[in-house]
């Protein structure tokens, strides 16, 4: 990696802010993309002030699938690394009561991210280099009553990233799947998350930079989640269905 541009999709989130800082500190120009890009001005100023980074802002709506082709084509440069931090948790109660709300969660966490990464993947494949980073979730490792709509969308996204990696590895393009557990951001606010399992956004930012530099395939943040999810995945279904976890 030679300090090429890094695109952050869904740049308004707390996790995206931390990821952008990690890459800016490492010397990369940063492209921040989100809906209503004007609200990213302060984040851009922060990256310039802290790290002297070159920052550009880009209007991007993950759910406006028709716009994704143009969005990628009109970036000032095809990024060296693209990090997809798009997502919305919704609430499980809301998703159960209103299937349309559930659809919004599924589109935000799977359809939108998959669409924009498809455009980026094709462009990087043509160029023959690049790294795609998808921020999925441990919730996708097994569906649970408490958040299976979000989990199902993330499961789809995780499988998609796995397939992209398999397809592109021979073409010089690397794909990183990031599986955060609890992260201390707006998304988890109000949830009572256990301290040792809860990462700060800065940890996730550093872990992603490290994964990109070392070409890791799948990372859990914190790594304790690899163990936790191995246990959860291996609970036999007759027992699992009776648990509330």
């Amino acid at each position, binding site marked *: 990696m030679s300090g090429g541009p890094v695109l952050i999709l869904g740049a308004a989130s707390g996790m995206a802010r931390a990821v952008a800082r990690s890459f800016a500190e490492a010397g990369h120009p940063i492209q921040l993309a989100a809906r209503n890009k004007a609200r990213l001005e*302060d*984040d851009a100023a*922060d990256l310039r*002030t*802290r790290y002297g980074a070159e920052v550009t802002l880009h209007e991007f709506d993950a759910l406006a699938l028709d716009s994704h082709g143009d969005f990628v084509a009109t970036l000032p440069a095809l990024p060296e690394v693209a990090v997809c931090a798009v997502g919305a948790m919704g609430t499980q109660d809301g998703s159960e009561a209103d299937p349309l709300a559930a659809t919004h969660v599924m589109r935000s966490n799977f359809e939108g991210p998959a669409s924009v990464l498809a455009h980026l993947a094709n462009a990087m494949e043509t160029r023959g280099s690049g790294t795609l980073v998808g921020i999925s979730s441990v919730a996708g490792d097994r569906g649970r009553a408490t958040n299976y709509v979000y989990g199902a969308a993330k499961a789809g996204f995780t499988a998609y990233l796995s397939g992209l990696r398999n397809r592109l590895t021979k073409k010089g393009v690397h794909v990183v799947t990031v599986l955060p557990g609890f992260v201390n951001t*707006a998304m988890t606010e109000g949830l009572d998350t256990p301290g040792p399992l809860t990462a700060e956004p800065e940890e996730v930012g550093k872990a992603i930079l490290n994964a990109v530099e070392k070409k890791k395939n799948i990372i859990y943040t914190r790594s304790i989640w690899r163990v936790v999810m191995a246990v959860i995945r291996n609970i036999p279904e007759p027992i699992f269905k009776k648990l509330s976890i």
Partner: protein
Amino acid sequence: MSMLSGWGRFPKVECHVVTARSEADVRAAVLASPLIARGNGRAYGDAAMNRGLTLDMTGMDRMLSFDDGVLVAEAGVLLGDIIHTFLPRGWFPMVTPGTKYVSLGGAIAADVHGKNHHIDGSFRACVDWIDLMGPDGTVTRLGAQDDLFHWTLGGMGLTGVILRAQIRLRAVETTFIRQETRALTSLSETLTAFESTLDAPYSVAWIDCSDGPHHGHSLLLLGQHATKADLSAGTPPLKVRHKGKLPVPFGAPPFVFRGVWLRGINGVYWLRGAKRAGTRLVDWDSYFYPLDALNNWNRAYGRRGFIQFQCALPLNTATAGLAELMQAIAASGSGSTLSVIKRFGPQSGHFSFPMPGYTLALDFPATERSLALMEQLDAITLAHQGRFYLAKDARMPEAVAKADPRAVAFAAMRAQAGLTDRFTSVQSERLGL
């Protein structure tokens, strides 16, 4: 709901906490409910807690511009962030308290002071302006020409929510401090030494308040920023290392804070310091933030937490007042592990803590015995026309705080401006501010 406390871990209060990540988040919170803004939780007591709504400002941690030592940043940026960003470029905070984990907003709200107060004054000395959100959600940019500016510096977040500020940093040639240590054997010797070193840029003393044979012994630490010429050849002048922190996994047993143990700890500390008396180069982190090297050092006191006591006494009563305070502590047998004494310069602002004279900072385990002792210390301080530091306070009665006429004026200003019911903390309710 989360269980919150200040850095002293006493008292603990169940609070509803919301994190602000933008000005819009702050406005929504301010319009929704009475609240107090909270930075990084480094005030020791209950200043940054509100049961109904505590607004966590650490999500507003963006640096907005920097030009030739002048920084504009959001209130949730930590002083340590500022140091790590700008010390490699030759800039250091003009005023810093004893921890770098304080937020910019917290430093402004408490108008913190450092080892250079006798020369440079409190944190306000580096603040050009503040953006403050009032109870109706409007944001006003306040400077030294505004009355509200002088209530907000030292106003403990009770005048509104501090959103961002412009501060000036100090140009430094190196990351090192030239430290001179003097070992002294009595309070009067210590005060004389302070008075004869008023031109030293930084000064602070650790003093033994125990009832042991070294009672009154002190180590006076003087400092100034080292120049390139002070460094040995080959030492990089502006290299900033990221240091790991040593964890404090569990508390020391309570008996350590009493009797023979305490006398022993204090005695050994003085002897070690005395042996190393003289001048040497110390890196910025060890000089300004020795306790930051221990992660969660506040846990050393165990589950019950600890209480800080910090008062300031005017110059004309300081000698007698400090002696009386130290005697009361020694007589109680539950002396303070870490007692720090410092000369203050002139007073400024409407409600800031420092006054020309001396300040004494102490910490005690949070026990009934300590609380009783602190009532005694309150009385001695008031008898000597002293005052108390709200950033450390966790237990003062209203009458003690209101003995300072400025507290009465502050409460009256708040009532008149319609702030009393909108910006409140557990501390402001306890003290009737």
